[in-house]
């Protein structure tokens, strides 16, 4: 499966945040999208998912235009996302959150045995009472353990302990091995370096760098762009 964005424009209430982003992600690869805060990364996730309307440009899923599809229709076509904030239904329980993502009660133990293991047997706990890290891990599990072909992850490691970052990285890697594509929006440059097949750098709502991970100059250019 392949998702193409061409000259994507979008924004909030008439204030544009994306100024013509073009990019592509397909099954079996991990693309790391990096950029400083406020360059439009979260806007891009919402636009790709259909939570924000496209004001100009086009979105194609396997060459089929999906620009006006509802988010749920994109999900059913094989696209998924995890969000930087409020990635879970806070008022609902862990079990209910899993159920809403397609894991019936009898399948939930199997998910939680893989990760996040700390939530095993805590299906009746309200998601809003979990720690920030637990919430992040559960939201990631909800997306990675589905059979989605393409998964967009917005800052999945933010606030995670290093050990959990490693665990999450393994699961993302496994997803690629299983033939699925991941668009990884990450500040955690080490994880991106470990996993990415390609890099995309975004600045002011535009793509300013796009290179394969084996491009010898990419690391220098990213460091320069991110000023780190």
């Amino acid at each position, binding site marked *: 499966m392949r998702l193409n964005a061409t000259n994507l424009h979008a924004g909030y209430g008439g204030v544009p945040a994306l100024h013509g982003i073009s990019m592509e992600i397909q099954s079996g690869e991990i693309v790391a999208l990096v950029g400083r805060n406020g360059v439009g990364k979260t806007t891009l996730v919402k636009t790709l998912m259909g939570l924000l309307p496209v004001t100009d440009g086009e979105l194609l899923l396997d060459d089929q235009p999906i620009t006006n599809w509802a988010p*749920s229709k994109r999900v059913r076509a094989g696209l998924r996302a995890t969000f930087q904030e409020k990635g879970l*239904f806070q008022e*609902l329980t862990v079990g209910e959150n899993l159920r809403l993502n397609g894991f019936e009660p009898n399948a939930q133990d199997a998910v939680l045995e893989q990760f996040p293991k700390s939530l095993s047997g805590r299906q009746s706990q309200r998601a809003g009472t979990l720690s920030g890290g637990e919430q992040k891990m559960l939201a990631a599990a909800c997306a990675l353990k589905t059979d989605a072909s393409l998964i967009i992850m917005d800052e999945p490691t933010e606030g995670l302990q290093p050990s959990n970052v490693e665990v999450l990285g393994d699961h993302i890697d496994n997803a690629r091995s299983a033939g699925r594509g991941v668009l990884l929006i990450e500040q955690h440059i080490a994880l991106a370096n470990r996993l990415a097949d390609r890099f995309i750098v975004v600045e002011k709502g535009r793509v300013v760098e796009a290179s394969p991970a084996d491009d010898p100059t990419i690391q220098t250019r990213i460091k320069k762009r991110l000023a780190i």
Partner: protein
Amino acid sequence: MEALGIELLNGLGLFATLGIVALGLGIVFGLMGVINLAHGEFVMIGAYVAYLVQDGGLNYWLAIPAAAVVLFFVGSAVEMVLIRRIYQKPELTILATFGLSIVLRQLAEILFSKNSRKVSNPIPGATDVFGITFPTYRLVLIVVATLIVVAVLLLFTKSRFGLTVRAIVANRGLAESSGIRTSVANILAFGIGAAAAGVAGVLVAPLVSVDSQIGLSYLPGAFLVVIVGGFTRLWGVVIGAAIVAAVQTGVTHYVDAVWAQIAALVLAVVMLQLSRSGSREVTI
């Protein structure tokens, strides 16, 4: 003692009626944030369905499923045609449903004239309850209305569909991103709310005048219940109906019916003031 017993049953009757009339409003307003001023006209359509069923020589009780089906489709259609595009604009939903209520009343007058229609009591007579003689139909109404309210509440709290609706209430965007077709769930919820109103109309029809104005009498009561019960939880409909029924029956008994209405209104205003101080998220 006997007088108290009768007032208790009267209060229960009012509680059951208010509960089932307000149920649909609780779903549509409490869960979906839509102020449906045509809710009373959904009750009216239910009452006319009861009339048509009885007039056609069929058993009165068939009107309950018939009205539920008819109103489910009416409610779904209203959601798709009228409400869908204006969820984010409460003032528009008020105007749209207000207009709808006028259209539905006019339609009723065209179809059934301005004259009141009679729905006969399907179970005339009285029954002894612990030595108190009470109209049988009212007893049945109490039981049937309570069962239906509980069933609908269970549907919304315990079923997969209910979980979906709660997810939408909690976070519509995340629900969509989890693959839930929120537009379909909205149609279903609105349809179920309307169906509940229709069943309420069937149940009250043998007690009142079935005419185009009937909805206007029930709408304020339904709003009272939803306000007093608070709509952060659907169970609030039950609590609200209980409080309003107790106040109305009590004040009517000890003072009079006019003060009973004033008391209920004051109660609603107090509840509004009390809850305005807090800003809570809406859940079931």
